[in-house]
């Protein structure tokens, strides 16, 4: 049996030791871990590791000598218990598809997968429930979708939604739920809802955990860093094409052209490649007058309310005016 060592935060000598162990398994550690588990054999050598970062189980690795001893189960059980005690009720993990069976036996269920990554969650019907809660509209076709952060909702977003809505019987606007932006997720969602309230064939929904958030990107176990961007976008698109689009009958996805951000541009290019294979048409809409949310945030920073006003709908402006400074 192993000695179980748990703790937080992961830093100092322990961090270096775990990093070295992971490196031998071809895993790269990124970001902070909130909680860690290390199993040690009789000689004190690491037999297995695992970490918890927010809602994501990470860095689960087992030494070759400890394979088949239930070490992974011990690690996962410690992580799951810790998360539960911390009140985290919904966990995710990313693994290689060949490990799916093992994690399945530990109470994780598949969400979607690509050739190299399988995303799993510990709720049997997590994504099914998320999809079931999104309103449907009978007979509306074609059904389109766009996914936006809207930090905050600008005239540019408004133009994209309006143009896309005209080309669809029904348009879903998914607002990214991850809280890593200047405007909190609840505010971004509310501003999109208010800013599109007059468009009768638009349904605004939260993306929750299922349109990949930065916090849940499975970057850490990819050996070739150059592949990274592809792995991320491919998994995101796998969730969209395998789960979301079929459930909501979505056949079109809309994006704005991206003149500035290379990551978004690469993502759009990848969509162009992968979505048609899944029977989904990708439609790029020319960005309106180069309006961007980052420009709005810069104007806010400079205290230029008049400048902000020119770039955002009244509903967004009202919020900024009330909350600025």
């Amino acid at each position, binding site marked *: 049996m192993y000695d179980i060592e748990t703790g937080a935060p992961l830093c100092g000598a322990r961090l270096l030791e775990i990093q070295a162990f992971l490196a031998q398994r071809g895993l790269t550690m990124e970001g902070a871990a909130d909680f860690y588990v290390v199993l040690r054999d009789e000689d004190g050598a690491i037999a297995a590791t695992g970490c918890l970062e927010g809602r994501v189980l990470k860095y689960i690795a087992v030494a070759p000598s400890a394979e088949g001893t239930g070490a992974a189960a011990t690690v996962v059980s410690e992580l799951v218990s810790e998360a*539960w005690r911390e009140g985290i009720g919904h966990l995710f993990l990313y693994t290689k598809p060949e490990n799916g069976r093992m994690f399945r036996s530990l109470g994780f269920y598949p969400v979607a997968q690509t050739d190299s990554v399988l995303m799993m969650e510990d709720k049997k019907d997590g994504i099914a429930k998320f999809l079931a809660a999104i309103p449907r509209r009978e007979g509306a076709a074609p059904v389109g979708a766009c996914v936006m952060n809207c930090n905050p909702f600008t005239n540019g977003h408004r133009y994209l939604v309006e143009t896309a809505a005209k080309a669809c019987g029904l348009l879903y606007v998914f607002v990214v739920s991850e809280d890593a932006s200047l405007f909190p997720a609840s505010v971004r969602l509310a501003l999109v809802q208010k800013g599109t309230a007059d468009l009768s064939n638009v349904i605004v929904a939260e993306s929750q955990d299922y349109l990949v958030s930065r916090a849940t990107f499975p970057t850490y176990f990819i050996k070739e860093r150059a592949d990274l961007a592809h792995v991320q976008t491919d998994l995101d698109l796998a969730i969209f094409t395998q789960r979301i689009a079929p459930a909501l009958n979505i056949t079109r996805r809309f994006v704005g052209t991206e003149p500035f951000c290379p990551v978004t541009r690469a993502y759009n290019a990848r969509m162009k490649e992968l979505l048609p294979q899944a029977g989904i048409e990708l439609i790029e809409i020319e960005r309106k007058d180069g309006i961007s949310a980052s420009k709005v945030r810069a104007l806010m920073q400079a205290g230029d309310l008049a400048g902000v006003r020119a770039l955002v709908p009244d509903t967004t402006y009202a919020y900024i005016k009330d909350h600025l400074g």
Partner: protein
Amino acid sequence: MQIVTKGVAGTMESSDIIVRIEPAEQKGIELTLTSAVMQQFGKQIEKVIRETLAELGVESAIVNAVDKGALDCTVAARVKAAAYRAAQCEDYTWRTKQ
């Protein structure tokens, strides 16, 4: 017994079961069971979980159990411990030998 928060007991070690309990909005026990011996004993494990909760008077809860071949007495013990924790109840009534 009222489930008011999240409670967990047990492990995923061989011969054990980990039971996670949380409050449910609707009445009833919503149970998800993963078991290494689902085919042979899935029904029996589910029965023990539901009976143990009924005994404790838990009428509403979401329960997630991952079983690794636990005996019935282990299943019952883990369910009880998780339920007491989830009910934030420390007033244990130990069953006396009959």
